[in-house]
């Protein structure tokens, strides 16, 4: 399946993209998405356990993802 991954702010700058389409096996979990991102060139600039959201809700690394999900890797927030 292909999963859409969003990157923001310092993470988008580090990877050089604000959106990725990653091919993953069915049944993949958030941690598998993160592993694939970290295999990219410059992927090492993303921390090992960043905040992640699936479909606009904070999610843990154990959560399963499906082809229609939107996965976002969230840098430390700084609103307000």
């Amino acid at each position, binding site marked *: 399946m292909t999963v859409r991954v969003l990157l923001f*702010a310092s993470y988008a*700058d580090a990877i050089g993209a604000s959106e990725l389409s990653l091919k993953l096996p069915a049944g993949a979990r958030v941690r598998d998405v993160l592993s694939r991102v970290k295999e990219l060139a410059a992927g090492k600039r993303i921390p090992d356990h960043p905040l992640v959201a699936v479909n606009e809700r904070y999610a843990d690394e154990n959560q399963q993802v499906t082809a229609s999900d939107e996965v*976002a890797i969230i840098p430390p927030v*700084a*609103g*307000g």
Partner: protein
Amino acid sequence: MRGAIVDRPIDPAALLAEVASPSNGATVLFVGTVRDMNDGTRVTGLDYTAYRAMAERELRDILAEAGERFATSDIVVEHRIGALGLGDASVVIAVAHPHRGEAYEASRYVIEELKGRLPIWKREHYADRKPEWVAATIGASSP
């Protein structure tokens, strides 16, 4: 209750008017503005960027929590994104309540939760070096 991520200046007086009601005796307005200093460095401006759909959803959750916890539906929040200059308002929270204690507490709840949860980031511009993304500064050193 209304929460929005906006890309235009925020009008605090409009938010005050939006929560006004003769059944409320107290209104607390919080205005967060761009400071000229951060950690001893002179700042000349900020860019705010957001995961906008999620930020609006998370903001709605925070408002619902505050409304239930403090028993009021008179809460309005706007968070601005884009390029902001010194003194510009980045976030405005208006809370009205029959009683002042709850108005202050609900306002405080919303700003603390918003700072901890909204997927919004800021890049500071400086007088003497390149812009930088600002890491979370929840706590005493943050406005």
